């Protein structure tokens, strides 16, 4: 293998920033290859949340006292960081949610539901996570609209031509993942957006697996909505973002009512707050969002392009090493792939393999990865999935390979 020593050294440095990685599991140093499920947090995120809780916590947007002011500054400051991170044009386009799932449900219920009529349709792909399937199924059931699904091929790539054929004058929205969580396929979202723009069809991108690995610029992509989660990008759970183009968000009604989303309430008439607060009812996850802001700072110090380049090289190393393991069957071999390899080994059930690997300190995800249609397409009940972050290195991959060989001995 062509090692790039400088980069490997960097990975070792980055790794030191993550306290959870400095531990042993079953007597072996932890090899964490499950970042696609949830990423570990750097010390600076953990400390920022703790410092906020110790010194600055109060409710946001309400009080005139000092702590409320500090909390509001920290919370809104994080929103600004998020705007900058994905290059949205305005902070009003950054709606803070509890994660990707809530962000997609918001679009389904607030953008789609009032517009959809029987006979209209929404187009998604066979590659989606349940979070980018079920919200659309629900709104289609509620309105009599049709959910159309673009197929994938043997390599786990969306058949883009067939997706385009599904889009017609009754299509209200196209929903597509940026990066598949189950297979790692990177979808050509720029192309899809360009095609849909030509037909005035808005596009929502599920960016949960895009944001941790790619340098995201929502203006360059040109999408109408982009949803992502904090905990996949080294921030706290229960945080996330819906980016929406301001013109669309303006037209959309609130989807949850409560405090903070109003300007004035009377029993006769309630005036909703301005963007993005119209969509943020109730006291938000303030400490989590403040922590997510720290995560953005941390990632930007390293640089997302540098992370993407490093991971690309590490991904290729992982693929080449795993391919050489006897009994290996890859699920998902897209030409353009990021950070993930799904596989099966001989006829060992994924959960048995997961247990044997765990026993050697190696954490991978096993099962259907909340993408049952993908599993059905490949005719498997589940897979093993190794997923990378920039804190992983080649030693982690080598340990994975050794652990797989041990599993073959046990089941041999």
């Amino acid at each position, binding site marked *: 293998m062509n090692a790039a020593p400088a980069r490997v050294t960097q990975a070792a440095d980055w790794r030191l920033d993550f306290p959870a990685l400095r531990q042993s599991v*079953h*007597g*072996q140093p932890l090899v964490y290859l499950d970042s696609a499920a949830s990423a570990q947090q750097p010390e600076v995120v953990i400390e920022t949340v703790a410092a906020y809780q110790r010194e600055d916590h109060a409710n946001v947007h309400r009080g005139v006292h000092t702590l409320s002011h500090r909390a509001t500054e920290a919370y809104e400051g994080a929103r600004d960081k998020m705007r900058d991170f994905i290059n949205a044009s305005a902070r009003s386009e950054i709606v803070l949610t509890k994660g990707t799932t809530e962000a997609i449900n918001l679009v389904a219920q607030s953008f789609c539901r009032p517009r959809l009529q029987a006979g209209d349709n929404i187009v998604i792909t066979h590659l989606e996570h349940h979070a980018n399937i079920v919200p659309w199924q629900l709104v289609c059931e509620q309105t009599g609209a049709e959910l159309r699904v673009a197929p994938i091929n043997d390599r786990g790539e969306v058949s883009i031509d067939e997706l385009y054929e599904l889009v017609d004058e009754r299509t209200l929205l196209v929903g597509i993942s940026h990066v598949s969580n189950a297979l790692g396929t990177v979808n050509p979202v720029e192309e899809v957006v360009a095609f849909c723009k030509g037909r005035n069809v808005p596009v929502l991108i599920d960016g949960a697996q895009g944001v941790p690995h790619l340098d995201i610029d929502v203006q360059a992509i040109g999408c109408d909505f982009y949803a992502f989660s904090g905990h996949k990008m080294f921030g706290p759970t229960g945080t996330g973002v819906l980016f929406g183009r301001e013109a669309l968000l303006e037209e959309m009604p609130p989807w949850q009512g409560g405090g903070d989303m109003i300007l004035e309430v009377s029993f006769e008439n309630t005036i909703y707050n301005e963007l993005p607060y119209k969509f943020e009812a109730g006291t938000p996850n303030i400490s989590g969002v403040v922590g997510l802001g720290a995560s953005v700072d941390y990632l930007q110090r390293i640089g997302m392009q540098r992370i993407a380049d490093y991971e690309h090289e590490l991904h290729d190393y992982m693929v080449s090493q795993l391919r050489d393991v006897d009994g290996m069957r890859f699920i998902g071999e897209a030409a353009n792939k990021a950070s993930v390899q799904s596989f099966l080994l001989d006829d*060992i*059930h*994924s*959960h*048995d393999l997961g*247990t*044997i690997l765990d*026993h*050697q*300190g190696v954490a991978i995800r*096993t*099962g*259907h990865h909340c993408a*049952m249609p993908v599993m059905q397409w490949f005719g498997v*009940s*589940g897979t093993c999935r190794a997923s990378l972050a920039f804190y992983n290195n080649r030693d982690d991959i080598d340990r994975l390979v050794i652990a797989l060989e*041990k599993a073959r001995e*046990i*089941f041999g």
Partner: protein
Amino acid sequence: MSHAELRDLYRELILDHSRKPRHFGRLNDATHKADGINPLCGDKLRLYLKIDSGRIESSSFEGTGCAISVASASLMTDAIEGMSVESAESCFAVVTDRLTGGASQLDVELEKLAALEGVREYPSRVKCATLAWHALHAALTDNPTPATTE
């Protein structure tokens, strides 16, 4: 890694029953059947029983699963054939109690089932081992909804 600990979970008897499950397939003259679903992984099995005069004459299962769940179903169907319904119910209670850390006594003639007890050290895998047993309980009580390990 302690190889021995893993060997305790994947004992030869478990591997043997998972590779060559006994009583695997459909039972055409079944009088009772029940489905078991493990919500953690989506694995499913269907259990068939032929009960005559309060006694389990024969049993079988079909479905997919990990080595632990297949071996458990295989060992269970081996063990319950010939048992009275009451004995099978009490066997269900004893085995599920032992797999979840309890101290119920296993009859001497059922000591093979102790091979499943390696899962006690693996909380996420206990459900794999108890799935078939929950299906047995559902079949014996004629519960029409699929048994889960929840």
